[in-house]
């Protein structure tokens, strides 16, 4: 039961914050994808930098549960391509659409309904699709730490990569008429 209250509390805080930064606004998201709005992509990269630093500190103190999802060259990539097409069309993600429904956006309700349909189709064919696309190229639960050998160095590398991303977005994403 405590899990339900924790989930509800975390979800409410999460939904409120993403509404307040504008991530639930599909107009803003479309402009971000068209390289005319820098705030949403920079925000996402900043969140990862801050939470990655915090998580390393928490893990050093023995707090928290982690679970790294495996990398499947084909399934992660193909899933990303299908996801990217849907994101470009609708401007919503599986998370933002719930908050946008609460916000009162009618088009988000249809994203949510479409999402339920997409989930139902995938779940129905899971037994065929996972052995076909996921398992053959599953490389396991890879992390940057496995590649560079030390978690501190890996964290530094992530901060540098995402920091460069933030700077490039600031340089190349331009509002209309700028």
């Amino acid at each position, binding site marked *: 039961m405590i899990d339900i209250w924790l989930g509800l509390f*975390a979800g409410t805080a999460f*939904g409120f914050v993403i509404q*307040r930064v504008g991530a639930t606004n599909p107009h803003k998201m479309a402009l971000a994808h068209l390289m005319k709005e820098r705030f949403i992509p920079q925000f996402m990269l900043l969140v990862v930098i801050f939470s990655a630093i915090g998580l390393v500190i928490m893990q050093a103190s023995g707090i928290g549960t982690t679970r790294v999802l495996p*990398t499947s060259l084909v399934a992660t990539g193909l899933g990303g391509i*299908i996801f990217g097409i849907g994101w470009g069309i609708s401007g919503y993600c599986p998370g933002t659409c719930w908050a946008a429904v609460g916000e009162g956006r009618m088009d988000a309700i249809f994203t*949510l309904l*479409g999402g339920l349909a997409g989930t139902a189709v995938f779940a129905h064919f899971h037994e065929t699709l996972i052995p076909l696309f996921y398992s053959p190229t599953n490389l396991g639960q890879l992390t940057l730490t496995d590649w560079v050998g030390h978690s501190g160095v890996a964290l530094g590398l992530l901060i540098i990569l995402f920091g460069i991303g933030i700077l490039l977005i600031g340089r190349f994403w331009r509002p209309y008429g700028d």
Partner: protein
Amino acid sequence: MSTQTNAPYWPIVPGAIALAGIMLFIFATFGPPASSSGFVTTLKGFFLEILPEYAGSKEHYRMMPGPGSWLMAFVLGMAIGGFIGGRTFRQKITDVPEAWIQRYGASRTRRYAATFLGGFLILLGARLAGGCTLGLFLSGATQLSISGIYFGIVIFAVSMLTARLVYSSRRDRHD
């Protein structure tokens, strides 16, 4: 860098600190946050009511908790948070975004059909990859996972290309 601000929305640095704090709270009290899984738990609850044998026969439903779980409470919480945010916000909330109206007109039917298709694709892709923007990219990259960074690069690249096709003006195409 451009000097314009994120107004009327929050500046992104305090916004990112707030969201990272919530992410860490979730890592501490639950585990890696995820939202596309909430769709699976919702549907599992639906099928457990109307077709329990079907829900029990499918691995994708067996591997996820049903309603009455953290995952389900989290996505419902997201809707509550969005509701509170929307009700206390000074900007008008639209049903059809302005960029869409400029390209396709104000037809609601057309926009709703497009977002239904978009929703279908984001969940199909997320379930195949094992997570979404939150569960795979934000959670994954926070844990320094290769899958999260790989997925993040692909979704940004493809959505930017898709948006160029979706929002390219008629004039660019025909004149």
